[in-house]
């Protein structure tokens, strides 16, 4: 990514358009966190593009002072891929909801992750279709009652992290809309990562799915039900950081430090950069019930970046063959002359 010595304020990434999300919608907080993350990363607004699909969250580009493209349902990842390939100096963000990104756009999502194109995907997960007024989404839990599932759904949801790992993703982070500082830091880390970054942000829809994440976001219990993973730091959680994650055979388990013979030395240290995704996947699959839900950067591994590989190949082939233009290329082939 191009680093700019110029310092930007969050307001440099805003524009004057009135924000039209519902009052109390989690998207407001996420938008603020994004403006702050962009200022922290320091890429100029005119070197930044924000591309979205369709859905409430996909209105976000209209509230940016950057280049922005509000496109069609499900296709943001494909459009962002073409954009980044065509204009690789730009820093590209993609905003999708759970319906846009994982239902109609599921194919583009997994292929973007597989290719490792250098875009930052913000996946705002509220487990509901808001813009169409309340149908279940591919992340809604089994049995979820909605307008299109009046008797409860009879299907299992996607867990976004599992899809990312299945598609061989190299960056996965999670945040919660109400935790602005974590969201900001996660988005900044996503921007700094080269390759496809996926940030799942648990977002509350006040109108159609209010409180869907309340088990996690509950103020009393949040410290016990979530763990903020930071690379190089011990995996501790709880109001007093009294709990820790330790190895349990091939799995991890939560223990109270100082009890049952477990000391602080037994507690695992988070390594987001290790190429093996075995532990990352286990950490990402924790859901807040038996084990705390992981937030923060869970996986952040360097791997060949698709757009860079394309550019390198073009440069290599050009250097080897060295045609100046179309005509010289054609003339190098089979031709004959008519006088």
């Amino acid at each position, binding site marked *: 990514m191009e680093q700019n010595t110029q310092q930007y304020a969050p307001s440099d990434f805003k524009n004057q358009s009135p924000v039209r999300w519902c009052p109390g919608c989690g998207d407001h907080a996420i938008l603020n966190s994004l403006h702050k993350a962009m200022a922290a990363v320091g890429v100029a607004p*005119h070197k930044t593009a924000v591309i979205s699909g369709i859905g409430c969250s996909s209105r976000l580009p209209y509230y940016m002072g950057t280049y922005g493209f509000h496109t069609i349902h499900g296709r943001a990842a494909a459009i*962002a891929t073409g*954009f980044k*390939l065509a204009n690789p100096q730009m820093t590209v963000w993609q905003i999708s909801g759970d319906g846009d990104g994982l239902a109609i756009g599921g194919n*583009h999502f997994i292929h973007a992750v597989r290719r490792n194109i250098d875009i930052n995907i913000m996946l705002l997960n509220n487990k509901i279709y808001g813009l169409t007024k309340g149908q279940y989404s591919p992340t809604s839990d089994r049995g979820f009652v909605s307008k299109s599932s009046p008797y409860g759904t009879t299907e299992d949801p996607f867990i976004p992290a599992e899809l990312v790992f299945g598609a061989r993703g190299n960056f996965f982070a999670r945040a919660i809309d109400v935790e602005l500082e974590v969201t900001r830091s996660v988005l900044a880390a996503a921007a700094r990562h080269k390759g496809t970054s996926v940030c799942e942000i648990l977002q509350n829809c006040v109108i159609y799915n209010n409180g869907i994440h309340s088990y996690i976001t509950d103020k009393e219990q949040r410290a016990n039900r979530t763990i903020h993973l930071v690379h190089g730091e011990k995996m501790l959680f709880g109001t007093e950081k009294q709990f820790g994650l330790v190895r349990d055979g091939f799995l991890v388990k939560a223990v109270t430090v100082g009890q049952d013979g477990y000391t602080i030395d037994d507690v695992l240290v988070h390594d987001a950069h290790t190429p093996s995704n075995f532990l990352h996947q286990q950490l990402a699959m924790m859901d807040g019930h038996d084990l705390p839900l992981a937030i923060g950067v869970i996986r952040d591994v360097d791997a060949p970046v698709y757009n860079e590989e394309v550019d390198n190949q073009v440069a290599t082939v050009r250097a080897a063959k060295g045609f100046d233009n179309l005509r010289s290329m054609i003339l190098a082939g089979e031709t004959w002359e008519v006088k």
Partner: protein
Amino acid sequence: MLEEAKVIAADKVVVRFSGDSGDGMQLVGNIFTNVSAGIGNQVSTFPDYPAEIRAPQGSLGGVSGFQVSVGTNVHTPGDSCDVLVAMNPAALKQNVKYVKPGGVIIVDIDSFKESDLKKAQFQTLDPIKELNINCQVLEVPVTALTKAALADSGLDNKSVLKCRNIFCLGLVCWLFDRPLESAIAFLRRKFAKKPAIFEANSLVINAGYNYGNNIHASVSTYRIESEPAKPGVYTDINGNTATAWGLIMASEKSGRPLFLGSYPITPATDILHELAKRKDLGVKAVQMEDEIAGVCSAIGASYAGNLAVTSTSGPGLALKSEGIGLAVMAELPLVVIDVQRGGPSTGLPTKTEQTDLMQALYGRNGESPVCVVAPASPTDCFTMAFEASRIAIEHMTPVILLSDAFIGNGSSAWRIPDADEYPEIKPHYVPAEKQSEQAWRPYDRDEETKVRYWAIPGTEGLAHRIGGLEKDYTTGAISTDPVNHEKMVYTRREKIARIADDIPQLELIGPADADTILVGWGGTYGHLRTAAHELCNEGHKVAFAQFRYINPLPANTAQVLSGFKNVIVAELNTGMFADYLQSKLPELHIERINKVQGQPFLVSEVKEAVKNIMDRHNC
């Protein structure tokens, strides 16, 4: 302007089977000849035996060949062949000189091992390169596939290998639509006393035929010869390659990098293949995960400032509809290439039709006008791909290029143009005086042409947001205002209509005082023009006009056509262009000649149909 073109050899094909003298080349040649004669073809054959009956296997001296010309007006076995079957390297070496430019060579790649190459005295391990072969080579694992087909037959290895020739016969029957039933009947008679051998050959001929079907093998049996009137350097080119090169020329002339987002589909895939090779000219051609991603990646590349293209055939165009609508709404340049094939649905993937015209013109939700153009011949694909790009970039609109399987695969001699024969393409950039966020809004447009400006992302001061929602005419902000929406609908429509001021006039070919004019569009040009020309020579006054620009129509269309009592529209569908033309010019008397068989017109059938219509009207 279109060069005069003549369709030649439209009615006959020449196939040359070659292999070791023990490979049964005479047998398959004879069967193919008989099958073709059985469906009414004239035939002429030329068995080409080696002097030595048992020359060493795989040696140059042991090559046996059988050439057959089938079709109409067949008087000789032909000087050169459209298809060469070469069972081993020696056969390839001995016979490659007979293959026409643009022909197809089928080789059994299983018999091209190092030892085989040595026997045929090749110096390298790459016989294709060593022989400087430039035409299409189908490398088919004939031996392996024959063995697989007969795995359960109980035949010994030697007998199995003797069936390789029949696999090739099956493949050639697929290429030329020869019915297997009569070939199998022939085999039944031949092996009447060896039912096991007959059963094996019957399995293998089907396997070869199905293989051709499965890989969508196709060969153009037609060549459109233009008169090489102009001095210059020529090359042989097919329509898909010409399309790819026309796009590259447009990229050079516009200064915008070329991006292709595509997905494999017969018969358009060669455009992706060619542009993927052209990384040596800086082209970025990417194979996306599906047709939708193909068009969407191109739309992203267009917003990012590239000359952006997606290539497909009819089913893919259907999938791209919503994306094209986005490009209409966002007013972004986009070139969509549809190499038409037989439809609907999967239809006839390797066969030609003109049945996507209505889909191209109208196949989107909402009032969604796009520019539609159609190349007339393989070489015209170059010019019209350039034109599609020019119009897209200068008028900020999607342009659909309607090529077809016939001209996409068909080849022709082409004079390589100098760069200065094509005009500079001037992207509709935001003018200097507007280059700040205060002075410029994303849907500001040139009131003369209704074209909005293109701000390339990365430019300071021009950060802007666009999208698929309706926008306010003035501010560019989201708007649901009813009157504004209607104004925007008419503005987008008018923008396309005004392209008519920026394209060539319709050219009238032949006698202007005729009562009858034959009208065509797209890849039927060679046949229709030849038909009109021959009718004139035979004393029937028939003029001709070719539409290369379909939406908008050339500005003088009404003026040219209104002078004729009969306007005969000939096309390979049930009358789509005729209907379209009638809707634009209700006063015209339009007659129709239609064919929907997945095959090109025959000049003779067009002439007959025109004469019938003229007789009816006493012209």
